[in-house]
């Protein structure tokens, strides 16, 4: 008999979107019990590593306007964004900025005490609201601390959710393992919100935390919910070597240069107007081109790279606005950016795709929403602008939190029913299929092989041959005998958790490769050397992937309100 714990709203993930959702659910109806379940402790989610800013229109009196933010977002998306969703983002973000301010966010200030903003890639106005270079960290701190005001929010730290429980496509809860004890539970609720972030750890060279694996995406996928636009993976121009740790775009926003081995600011050839502050897909492609044409550097690890030069900014500005970046450079790269340029190269940073949701954040399952990077409400289309992801987390954290709370309060959500069969099947899947599995292949080596395949075959540039080969190689990995857990203890068994994560990584990697293969065009972050042009006739549409032995692909229309697709130039 599996013990169960019941609540009204179950939020999976305790990052920026999850915490915002928790507060908004708790405030919408204070009689509801809100549970936040996460495989990590509070304040450990990868949102803490967001550095640069949160985009919002705050200074209309100085020339900014919402129309411009909307258009920048849609243009940045290479016209794959759903335009109504982009409008909602832009309209709702200022509220979030001021709400965070009222909750204690240490926004960087102008001398007159108003909130300051900085420049960021792809924008027509400096509208990245910032707090030094630790924006995500401070937003997390502000939301977590504020959540402690609410007696109806309960945190389940280090509980690993394994599967969604449902009844006739209606969300009923999840199964989860309490890591400390190893005990298996049903967490029941009529309403759920998936906020498990991105899955960038399916690449080896990645800015993401080790915890950023696709458990949440995979859980939804296995429950029959569509994953949308998974082929669109953002490569951020500036990851340091060899760790992949991020140098914020704010470093270029503050005036940093990208230089090649000839000492040239090469971006002038690729984006004569915006230079280093063109959108991320364009800068990353330019960098790979420079390296391919022999104008890169070699890092001592053997990797190709270019350099980011901040030395002309001066020590004072760097210490005041980019202190975290300076620390990262010294500690993880051995370079003080005040004195020397730092070696960087494009790095897996964000997934535009995710759980298919509508403008309200609702998934295809009744009672289940998704928010933040785990979701794909199509606000970012084929390429996200910097500083728009924290905005998305805040806006749709709030929206889904309210929606889930209203739903849980209504009579529609009255009873929760889970068939014992479902729970039995899940126990079989994870305990017989994984925990008690056997085999010779080291799952950690397999994980490394998988992520290396993704680095090689589904990177900044892709082509048919490479993607096919990637698929074949992933298939071969899948069929090898890796599914076993050598640690037999119940308590805090991270070996077991790791192997379950790897199980999800294999499925999601497949979807990225298949989506990339079927999209025979180049759009935003998805650049096919064999189909170098955007093809609005055949591919101005979203990709959907549904669970099957092989992912089943389908298409979904793009919502266009006012902006006809044109060619992107920066």
């Amino acid at each position, binding site marked *: 008999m599996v013990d169960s714990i019941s609540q009204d709203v179950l939020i999976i993930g305790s990052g920026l979107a999850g915490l915002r959702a928790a507060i908004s659910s708790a405030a919408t109806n204070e009689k509801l019990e809100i549970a936040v379940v996460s495989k990590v402790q509070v304040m450990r989610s990868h949102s*803490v590593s967001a550095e640069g800013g949160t985009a919002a229109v705050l200074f209309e009196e100085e020339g900014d306007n919402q129309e411009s933010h909307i258009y920048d977002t849609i243009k940045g998306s290479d016209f794959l964004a759903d335009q109504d969703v982009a409008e909602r983002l832009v309209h709702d973000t200022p509220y979030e900025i001021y709400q965070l301010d*009222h909750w204690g966010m240490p926004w960087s200030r102008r001398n007159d005490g108003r909130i300051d903003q900085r420049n960021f890639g792809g924008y027509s106005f400096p509208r990245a609201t910032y707090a030094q270079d630790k924006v995500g960290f401070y937003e997390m701190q502000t939301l977590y601390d504020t959540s*402690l005001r609410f007696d109806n929010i309960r945190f389940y730290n280090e509980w690993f959710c394994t599967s969604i429980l449902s009844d006739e496509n209606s969300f009923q809860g999840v199964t989860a393992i309490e890591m400390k004890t190893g005990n298996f539970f049903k967490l029941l609720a009529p309403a759920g919100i998936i906020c498990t972030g991105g899955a960038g750890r399916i690449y080896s060279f990645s800015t993401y935390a080790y*915890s950023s694996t696709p458990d949440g995406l995979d859980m939804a996928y296995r429950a029959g919910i569509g994953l949308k636009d998974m082929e669109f993976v953002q490569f951020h121009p500036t990851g340091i070597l060899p760790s992949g*740790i991020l140098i914020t775009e704010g470093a270029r926003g503050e005036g940093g240069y990208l230089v090649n081995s000839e000492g040239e600011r090469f971006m002038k050839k690729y984006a004569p107007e915006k230079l280093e502050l063109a959108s991320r897909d364009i800068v990353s492609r330019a960098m790979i081109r420079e390296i391919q044409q022999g104008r890169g550097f070699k890092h001592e690890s053997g990797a190709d790279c270019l350099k980011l030069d901040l030395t002309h900014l001066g020590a004072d500005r760097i210490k005041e606005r980019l202190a975290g970046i300076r620390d990262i450079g010294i500690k993880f790269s051995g370079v003080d950016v005040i004195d020397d340029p730092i070696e960087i190269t494009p790095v897996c940073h964000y997934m535009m795709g995710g759980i298919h949701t509508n403008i309200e954040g609702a998934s295809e399952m009744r009672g289940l929403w998704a928010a933040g990077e785990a979701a794909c409400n199509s606000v970012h289309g084929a390429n996200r602008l910097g500083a728009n992801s924290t905005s998305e987390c805040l806006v749709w954290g709030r929206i889904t939190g309210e929606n889930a709370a209203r739903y849980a309060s209504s009579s529609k959500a009255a009873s929760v029913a889970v068939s014992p069969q479902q729970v039995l099947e899940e126990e079989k899947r994870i305990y017989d299929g994984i925990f008690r599995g056997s085999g010779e292949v080291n799952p950690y080596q397999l994980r490394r092989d998988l992520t290396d395949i993704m680095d090689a075959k589904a990177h900044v540039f892709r082509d048919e041959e490479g993607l096919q080969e990637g698929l074949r190689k992933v298939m071969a990995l899948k069929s090898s005998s890796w599914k076993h857990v*050598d640690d037999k203890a119940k308590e805090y068994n991270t070996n077991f958790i790791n192997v379950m994560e790897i199980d999800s990584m294999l499925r999601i990697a497949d979807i990225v490769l298949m989506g990339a293969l079927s999209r025979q065009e180049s759009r935003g972050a998805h650049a096919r050397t064999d189909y170098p042009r955007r093809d609005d006739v055949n591919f101005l549409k979203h990709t959907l992937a549904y669970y099957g032995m092989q992912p089943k692909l389908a298409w979904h229309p793009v919502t266009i309100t006012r902006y006809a697709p044109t060619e992107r130039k920066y």
Partner: protein
Amino acid sequence: MSGIIKKISMLRTGSKLERSKKSLRARSSIVLRVYRANKAIGDSAHYDTFDVPIQRWTTVLDALLYAKSYKDTSIGIRYSCRMASCGSCGMKINGIPRLACYTNVSELESGVISCEPLTNFPLIRDLVTDFHQFFSHHKSVRPYIINQNADLRDRKELSEFIQSPREVDEYLQSSYCIKCGLCYSACPTVATDTKFPGPQALAQAYRYSADTRDTGSREDMKTIDDKHGIWRCHFAGSCSSVCPKGVDPALGIQLLRGHMMSFSKHNKKIAELKHHSHGNQTT
């Protein structure tokens, strides 16, 4: 405990960058000595050793994850961001509380690296400790803005609370806290009194009290103004020495005491006190 404090005080000396550049040429591998115990099944504690290859950039976390991936998958360890932002991987490394991801192997200048769970926390397994009490202490000081206008109501009337850069500076350093627990582990007072909220929580009480947006009062709170509260701190300063983010909890505690001894929040005397206690600490 005094041994730890002595070791901790050595942390601040010398240029780590220079030293690590010098020593890295010497070694291509190190021995990790990892504390092992599973409390729930009454495992007796022991150490396992692992030979791990290293490079110039290898951190203690990299070394531990190598051992976990290729030598013994059962090592219990908590980790996530690997860039000193998330605070997961606090442990005692060669006797001192540190973040494993923020400790370069070469800076330790030692062929044997010993990894043990943080003291002052109950053990779960191996290097993993229980943070329940720690998070409860944090919550007990009401670490949020207390202000009846904190929740925005009217979506049309949007504006910020005006706060000058200088006012931000009053609390900013204390807001760097990533809740990694290193200060709590290093604190000699926590070691003898588990009801003492500890440097992390008290520094956060200061952080919000010093914020001009906060109109509430924490000084009368039972958890702070209590014989197990703020007066227990005897200013050993080890909390501030081990903090990986440059928070100075010892200073925060002194400043909060200042508040409680009826200095008002915006009194000039706060700045004087801050100056004074800085002087004390460095001399």
